[in-house]
C-alpha cells in the first residue's frame, strides 16, 4: 500500500476542515473494510486518511419508539443486530447488517460506510431506502439533509461534496402494524456480494389483511440501489395476499434494469428481482402481523 498521512478527528468540525483542505486526496475511514482494500489494490488513492471513529456523534445509536433511530454513520454492524429494540423496529436493517461479510467484517464495517462506498450491490442501502432514511451530511457550509434514495449517483459515486461527511442516518419512528425484510441472492451460503438484493417495507391496516403503504427497493439491478417507486405506490390498498406478492414480483422484474456480469446475466437478475421482492413482501407482512418467519 502507498503511504499516506493519518489523522484522527474527534469532532465533526475537525474532520470537515481536514477533508476540505485536501479534497479528493483525503478519504474518510470508518470500519475500513472497503477503504483499506481499495487503497491497497490501487482502486482509490489518498494522501490523507481521516479516522472518524472517535467522533461521539458518529458512534452513537439512539433509539426511542417515539422519536425513531439516529444511527451514527460509523456504528459497526454488530451493534445494530446486537440491539433487540433496533432489530425489532427496523428488521430489514438488521437483516442487512447480519449478512454484510462475515463476523470479522461486521465487527468493523458500518452502515454509513456501506452507503458512502455507494456500491449498486450494497446490502444495507435497499433497507435504508425502504425505511425512508434521511441522511444528515455535515460540510464546510453546515448541515444538510438528503433522502437516502437520492444519495447514490452512480457506481461508487454519491452526493457528498468537497469536505462533506455523512454524520447521521435518521429513521422515522416505526408505525404500528408495519415491518420490513431484506434478502439477497448469492451462490454461496454466506460471505458474498449480492447477485440481486431486495428490501420491502409494509404498513398494514388494523386487521392485518390489507397493505396501506409499502416501499420496495432493489440492489444490483441498476447503476445505483433502486427505489421501486411505481411498484411501491401500486401496492397501497392491495390485499396482503400471495396473489398481490406475485403481481408485485412481475412489476419488480420490469423495474429492474440490470447488466450482465460475472455474478449473473441480465435475465437471471430480473428473475431474481421478482423472486426476492415476492419473498420480502411476504416476510414483511408476516412480521407486521407479529409472526417470526424463518428467513435463512
Amino acid at each position, binding site marked *: *500500500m*502507498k*503511504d*499516506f*498521512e*493519518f489523522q484522527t478527528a474527534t469532532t465533526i468540525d475537525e474532520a470537515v476542515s481536514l477533508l476540505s483542505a485536501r479534497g479528493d486526496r483525503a478519504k474518510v*475511514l470508518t*470500519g*475500513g*473494510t472497503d477503504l*483499506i*482494500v481499495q*487503497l*491497497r*489494490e490501487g482502486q482509490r488513492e489518498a494522501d490523507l*486518511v481521516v*479516522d472518524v*471513529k472517535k467522533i461521539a456523534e458518529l458512534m452513537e445509536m439512539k433509539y426511542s419508539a417515539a422519536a425513531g433511530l439516529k444511527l451514527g454513520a460509523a456504528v459497526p454492524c*454488530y451493534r445494530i443486530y446486537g440491539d433487540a429494540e433496533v432489530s425489532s423496529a427496523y428488521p430489514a436493517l438488521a437483516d442487512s447488517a447480519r449478512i454484510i*461479510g*462475515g*463476523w*470479522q*467484517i461486521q*465487527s*468493523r464495517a458500518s452502515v454509513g460506510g456501506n452507503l458512502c462506498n455507494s456500491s449498486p450491490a450494497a446490502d444495507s442501502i435497499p433497507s435504508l431506502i425502504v425505511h425512508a432514511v434521511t441522511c444528515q451530511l455535515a460540510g464546510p457550509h453546515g448541515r444538510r439533509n438528503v433522502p437516502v434514495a437520492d444519495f447514490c449517483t452512480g457506481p461508487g459515486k454519491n452526493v457528498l461534496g468537497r469536505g462533506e461527511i455523512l454524520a447521521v442516518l435518521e429513521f422515522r419512528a416505526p408505525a404500528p402494524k408495519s415491518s420490513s425484510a431484506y434478502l439477497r441472492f448469492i451462490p454461496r*451460503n*454466506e*460471505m458474498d456480494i449480492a447477485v440481486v438484493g431486495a428490501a420491502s417495507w409494509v404498513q398494514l391496516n388494523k386487521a392485518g389483511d390489507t397493505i396501506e403503504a409499502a416501499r420496495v427497493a432493489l440492489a444490483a439491478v441498476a447503476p445505483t440501489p433502486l427505489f421501486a417507486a411505481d411498484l411501491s405506490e401500486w401496492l397501497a390498498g392491495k390485499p396482503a395476499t400471495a396473489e398481490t406478492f406475485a403481481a408485485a414480483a412481475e412489476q419488480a422484474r420490469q423495474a429492474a434494469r440490470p447488466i450482465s456480469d460475472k455474478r449473473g446475466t441480465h435475465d437471471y437478475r430480473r428473475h431474481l428481482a421478482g423472486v426476492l421482492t415476492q419473498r420480502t413482501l411476504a416476510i414483511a407482512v408476516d412480521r407486521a402481523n407479529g409472526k417470526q418467519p424463518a428467513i*435463512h
Partner: protein
Amino acid sequence: MAKKTHVAATVNGQPVEFLCEARQSLLEVLRDVLQLTGAKEGCNNGNCGACTVLLDGLPVDSCLVLGVEAEGAQITTIEGVANDAQLHPIQQCFLEDAALQCGICTPGFIMTAKALLDRNPNPSEHEIRFQLSGNLCRCTGYDKIVRAVQDSALRMASSAATTSKAASANGGPAAVAAARSK
C-alpha cells in the same frame, strides 16, 4: 522514509508500544514489528479470515485494520490463547479431531471459535457454520472443523460446570451428547 507513529496497545495481556507507518496493517505490525507470526496472511483483502485476531474481544481481520488504529486497544492473538504449556481446549480439540491439514487457516479459525464460545457456550451446528463463515479452509471441507468446535464446547462446558447444566434444549453439542448418552 515515511513518518512513523507511536502506538501503545495491550497484546495478549502485555502492554506493548511500537512505531508504525500509517499504511501498515495491524497484521503487518503483529508479524513484522512484534514478531507474532501466528496470525497468517492469506488473501490480504478480508475474505479468508486467516489473519483473525480479537480486537477488544471482537474477531476482526487484522489485514483490514491499520496498525495506527490499535492505539489503546486490547488485542488477543493465537499466541495468547494457550495457558503456558497447556493448550486451550479449542486447540486441543482441533488437534484430536484432525481439524487441520496445512494449518494456515487454523489460527484464524481458533480465534473466531474462541470469540463464539466465549459468548455462546453451546452453539448449534448452524450457528457454528454461520459464525465461522468469515474463515476459509481449502483442505478439510469444514466438517472436521465444525466437529472440533462442537467438541470444544463440550469440553469447556464439562470443565466449567456439570454437563447437564449446559445441555440446554437448543440442539447444541451438549444437548446432542446428552441425547446420545441416553
